[in-house]
């Protein structure tokens, strides 16, 4: 857990500061997710204990909103836009290509833990359609081939850095 200590304070600070004011559940869940990358089982118990909101209610709120995740994420988050403009520009074909390239279905994480694939309703850069985001970088005017290339290059870089990490002296 040592690596995550830097952001941990925010989550615990929020919990500690909680004074029973109503409406704090969603911000608490958001800070938990910022901290862990998802909402683990123990965070639900912890929040429930502090706020006196039953765990079942907390779970109900988590599953209602698409932002919250109950599973850990891959190292890279691939978000493919399927808003109206991107859809008209052929994003359905891109979904197939990307699923095939990464070997995952939408919503899942690849076996090597590198990629998690999502579709989103709109990224708001409709004039660059079709668009995908890989982590914080946006790629526009995609074709099946260019989308595959972007992901393949990323995977290749990952493979290289992994090898370097395994043999740093060599």
């Amino acid at each position, binding site marked *: 857990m040592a690596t995550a200590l830097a952001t941990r304070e925010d989550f615990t600070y929020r919990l500690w500061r909680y004074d029973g004011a109503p409406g704090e*559940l969603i911000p608490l*869940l958001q800070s938990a997710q910022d901290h862990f990358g998802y909402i683990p089982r123990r965070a639900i118990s912890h929040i429930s204990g502090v706020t006196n909101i039953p765990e079942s209610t907390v779970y109900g709120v988590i599953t209602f909103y698409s932002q919250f995740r109950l599973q850990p994420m891959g190292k890279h988050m691939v978000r493919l836009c399927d808003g*109206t403009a991107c859809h008209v520009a052929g994003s359905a074909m891109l979904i197939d290509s990307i699923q095939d390239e990464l070997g995952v279905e939408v919503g899942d994480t690849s076996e090597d833990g590198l990629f998690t694939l999502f579709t*989103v309703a709109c990224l708001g850069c409709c004039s660059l359609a079709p668009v995908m985001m890989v982590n914080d970088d946006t790629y526009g005017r995609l074709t*099946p081939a260019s989308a595959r290339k972007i992901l393949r290059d990323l995977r290749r870089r990952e493979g290289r850095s992994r090898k370097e990490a395994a043999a740093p002296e060599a």
Partner: protein
Amino acid sequence: MTRVIVGMGTCGLSAGAQQVYDSLEELCGQREGLFELGRTGCIGMCYREPLVEVRQDDGARFVYGGVDPDLAGRIVEEHVAGGRVLEEHLAVALESGAGAPEGTETGFLGSQNRIVLRNCGTIDPERIEDYTSTPEGYKALRRALFEMTPGSIIQEVKDSGLRGRGGAGFPTGLKWSFAAGNESDVKYVVCNADEGDPGAFMDRSVLEGDPHSVIEGMIICARAIGASSGYIYCRAEYPLAIRRLTIALDQARANDFLGPDILGSGFGFDIRIKQGAGAFVCGEETALFASIEGERGMPRIRPPFPAEKGLWGKPTNNNNVETYANVPWIIVNGASAYSALGTEKSRGTKVFALAGKIRRGGLAEVEMGTTINDLVFRIGGGIIGDREFKAVQMGGPSGGCIPSSLGNTPVDFESIPSTGAIMGSGGMVVMDDTTCMVEIARFFLDFTQKESCGKCTFCRVGTLRMLEILERITKGEGRIEDLDKLEKLARQIRESSLCGLGQTAPNPVLTTLKYYRDEYRAHIEDHRCPAKSCLALVDFFIDAEKCVGCTLCAKNCPVGAITGEAKKAHVIDNSICVKCGKCISSCNFGAVYKN
């Protein structure tokens, strides 16, 4: 000193504005005293991002489009230092001083009438001094506090004819008067910034480009209805908007525009930001309140209306971003200046987000009553590749498709609903002859079906049944009685749903059935997709000119329908093909096509 300004909204940043800014920052340091570097929000010309503006001392403004770090360097050397305009890269010249050439894109900006977007792309959204130096900039607030009574503010807004810009078009002044008339110890002002329609990004651009105008509008509303506390409910998907809003709120507090005693008037008000967590239904006001209260965002039964019992059971006024951004302009320029614009029942202007198969996609603010054709052709520059203009989709998943034959329809709160679509928040997705209308109806229903909160049975189950029927039709397995069944289900969902999501969810299906019934019949009776879009109803071919014989498609074909020698063009046997589309998505050379 000449100022060089980079457009840094989300669309600019995703096109590479940060790299351009960084390279200009370096140049600015090297050539001290040559120019001042600034940033601004979205000017609306998304199709030419990243944009860089050179603002000369004489007031002339030259906006360059498609700028990369190299071009940025040339702009500094040749234009700023050398005084020579790089005409081939110029997107538009504004308020041209002496010797300024004709802008190449004056059609886009020149046909607009910018009230809401008055400062977007002009001021630095992170500097309150920029906003206060505009004609409205917190002067409207001073007037509302010291020269007007709550009653006269409401009267002014009523007289302006401003109607809610979130979609329903309820008169804003009237809404305020309801909340003002209810006595309570606490009242709330809420700003709906949960812009969930796929294909709409007006509110995001206003929040990123001019956050103070929204904040000022909210404070004036609070003064009018007597509220002490406010919330901005913003999508978590808009991190830049949230950051700029946070900065703007801190600045407003530091300048005494927010706080317990605003400008010494004795009136106190403050605003908090609530981040949404991703639920389309939270655009509905009672669901939005539930979400602020930390619950599942499910709509509540009305009455009681929010003006009586809203957030935390207290009288609440809720408007969207664009509505509040209009308010300071109205207070400073007067109701009559605003009501002089637009049509008789729809006053003022409206911002539209143009997207889809259109040449100049971006944000356009026009007078109410402008026709669809004007927006598509005069401002949007027509269809990409000069294809046929088929339809425009308005109002997002709650709206409908308006065919090009009705292109002369004026956009206002009366005319658009008469076509079966709705004004909505202003998303406008343009479609050409390659878009299949049945598929589009399926796409929207897929969205509303997933986003239904599940409270009302007809919305929860009915949309799923409609989706199943539409999926069947796009696969060529539809039955002719399906069309009547769709209409019947649509009627039932509309009548039996509590909130706007369910009531309007069938609109895309109903409008496409109304205007494109032939297309539905072609899918069902002839097993043919006229737009050649539905995979199950087209044949696949390989362009021998483009195919390099990499064999990738043949390896990916699950039924072995593709044959050919390595390094020679391949062929698809359509008698074996199962139309899965794997060949198209696997080809790196764009050689596979549908017909």
